[in-house]
């Protein structure tokens, strides 16, 4: 790595003692010698193992659940169904008033994706729990499912989630989050070229080294200590308090040392049911995802579809950009309504475009609920935007890097969501990339600056 101190030297004082120093990480020796304690290193006498009975169907009505054989299985201590969960229908963003509550801790009456949790089994050993899971009998009536976002948005499509009533999230702005800036239609009419292209991604796994999980110990004072690898301690505690209808003062979360997290551990999935198990049995409980569960059950990065329509002039100026983004939330909201709206605030990318129209949709389908992942609401949008930029440059016969200089935002430029640009540095990054990659651009671009009224 090379620190190029010559850029922005005029706005930066390099007079610090500890900041800017490559101090060795104090936690590294523990990590590399195996001495760092993670949640799963906690082991308590009498600890029970929790395993889930999961839906084999993408969409089905539950006619009946028979747990009698499972309960008789040697080693099984407790079997939990929806009726055991005090506040079974929840949504995690209710903490910031983003509802409605639309997901069940344990399925009640219906399953909406293949892999959804239906029954929780607590047993003396992992093996006994796994064997008992196979003995739970669930009678399903399979329902039509929808997997494609376009199909889901058509009239008459199967309704994925009755708590929403339609297969998209309803924002206060309507069926999508909107950004309106200037007049895109007038600008398209004036543009030398108009290019509309569609981009698509597929769900992506977080792949942390340490799978999602927690260990819960009931304390003597009617409190529960939950050792967890959540990425958000109080967010998880407060949601657990709602789901279990238990005062927050009864809950003690310990964590903060996590073996990799890219957003998937912001969901609140394992902690509430494990604490409930500990409460109802009076025993410590551990609930840790297998690698298979981590890959197919825990939330992936959402698949997205992004449609971009641009109006561009022969001289390289983009004069209009219309973006329609679709985020595949899967069967439940989790963080997806936030991610789709974050996308609306990110488009049209780091470029100054006078006419912009953005619609971002959060769509429900019968698949594993997606949620936050590194670059939430932005990563796939950037893929679409930057491939589109390449296509536009070639369309007008311009060098792709020079084309970006022409449109790059600078301090003071008004963004589509009506915030003036501050602290821009795109131009300088491109100048340095031009040098480092030996990708020459015209001298006038190397003389540009992100500063207001920069050359």
């Amino acid at each position: 790595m090379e620190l190029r101190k010559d850029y922005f030297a005029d706005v930066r004082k390099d007079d610090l003692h500890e900041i800017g120093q490559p101090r060795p990480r104090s936690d590294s020796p523990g990590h590399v010698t195996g001495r760092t304690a993670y949640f799963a290193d906690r082991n308590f006498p009498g600890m029970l193992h929790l395993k889930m009975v999961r839906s084999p169907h993408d969409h089905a009505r539950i006619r009946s659940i028979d747990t009698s054989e499972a309960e008789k299985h040697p080693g099984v201590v407790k079997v939990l169904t929806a009726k055991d969960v005090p506040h079974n229908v929840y949504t995690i963003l209710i903490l910031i008033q983003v509802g409605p509550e639309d997901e069940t801790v344990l399925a009640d009456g219906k399953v909406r994706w293949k892999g959804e949790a239906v029954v929780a089994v607590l047993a003396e050993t992992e093996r006994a729990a796994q064997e008992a899971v196979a003995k739970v009998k669930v009678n399903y009536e399979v329902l039509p499912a929808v997997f494609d976002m376009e199909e889901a948005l058509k009239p008459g499509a199967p309704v994925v989630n009755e708590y929403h009533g339609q297969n998209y999230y309803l924002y206060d702005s309507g069926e999508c989050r909107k950004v309106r800036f200037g007049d895109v239609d007038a600008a398209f009419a004036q543009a030398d070229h108009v290019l509309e292209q569609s981009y698509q991604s597929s769900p992506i796994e977080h792949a942390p080294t340490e799978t999602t999980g927690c260990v819960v110990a009931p304390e003597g004072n009617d409190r529960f200590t939950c050792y967890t690898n959540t990425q958000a301690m109080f967010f998880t505690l407060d949601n657990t308090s709602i789901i279990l209808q238990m005062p927050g003062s009864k809950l003690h979360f310990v964590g903060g040392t996590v073996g990799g997290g890219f957003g998937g551990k912001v969901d609140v999935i394992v902690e509430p049911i494990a604490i409930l198990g500990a409460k109802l049995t009076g025993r410590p409980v551990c609930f840790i995802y297998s690698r298979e569960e981590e890959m197919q059950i825990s939330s992936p990065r959402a698949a997205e579809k992004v449609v971009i329509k641009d109006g561009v002039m022969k001289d390289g100026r983009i004069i209009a950009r219309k973006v329609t983004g679709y985020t595949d939330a899967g069967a439940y909201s989790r963080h997806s309504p936030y991610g789709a709206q974050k996308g609306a605030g990110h488009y049209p990318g780091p470029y100054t475009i006078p006419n912009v129209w953005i619609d971002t949709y959060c769509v429900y389908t019968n698949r594993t609920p997606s949620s936050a992942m590194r670059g939430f609401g932005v990563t796939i949008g950037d893929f679409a935007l930057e491939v589109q930029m390449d296509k536009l440059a070639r369309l007008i016969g311009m060098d792709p890097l020079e084309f970006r200089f022409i449109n790059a935002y600078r301090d003071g430029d008004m963004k589509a969501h009506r915030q003036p640009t501050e602290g821009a540095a795109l131009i300088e990054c491109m100048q340095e990339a031009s040098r480092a990659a030996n990708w020459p651009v015209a001298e006038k671009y190397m003389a540009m600056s992100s500063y207001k009224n920069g050359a």
Partner: protein
Amino acid sequence: MAIRRGRGVAAINYPTGMNLGGDPTQALVHSTPTGNFMVTLSSVDLGQGMKQIMAQICAETIGVPTDRVVVDTADTDTGPHCMGTFASRGTHRAGNAVIQAAREARQVMLEVAAEEMEVNASDLETDGQGNILVKGAPQKSMSIFDVALSAHFKRGRSISGRGMFLIPRSYPEKETGAMKPSTCYAHACTVAEVEVDDETGEVTVLTVKNVFEIGRALNPKMVEQQLVGGSWMGISHALYETTEPYYPNRDHGGTDFNQYLMPGPGDLAETEIIVLERPSADGPYGAKGPGEMCANPQIPAVANAVFDAVGVRIDTLPITPERILRALKAQASN
């Protein structure tokens, strides 16, 4: 049939924080009797090194070496509230809270030293080595060890501080979408060079040159580990990863690392990282959040390089050999 070479560029920015939800983090700082400092948080270290960075921020602010600071996180019985580690917010939000708490603790520390040395607190400064000096008369000094002892056993003072950083929630305007989705933006430009085998559709990423602007590299070695890892993840997203290879079809989802494709060490490109620093107005010592941004520009840069190499656009991720071969076949038949 041939191996064809191409290169592509992408430039991006990335927002720090989750302003659209409201974004608070708190921190507490206190000294031990012998002048070490405890930072108490409920923020989560995901392995990225948050504890180390918070220690350096606290040390810089109080004016002591980093090894005099211990970070305690995350326990909800002791640590004050933090929204969580996501949205590239950890260093920025918690760092600002730690600075505020450390400033308050530093002020008490200087007041105690001033009483001991019979000078005004405003005339004192720290040397960064564990001592408090009189400005302009450095021979008149006192160790922070002794100042802490005095505070605890003689002066009855608590060398401690409270820190709070809050970005109030921004509500998007319904019709126009006017909003403040972030506080500051990190930037990047990446140039990727690839080889594409037009017989097998296989892509080899040869070099990835990344330029990142991150506000301030608080610890350059840790910045490097973050940015290199992110760059690898970007390549992985571009060419390999998905839980549903034939999305929206649900079949063929991987359930372990044999089935779920990710690059191995031999698949990783020669990676170059260049860092620029334009300090952000509201970041701790000017830092922005580069943790998420650093995995983004490689994806379109690789996609554009594939086009440059073989002349077909793969607009669906991941860019698999199958998709490239199908596109080449369609191109040949046109």
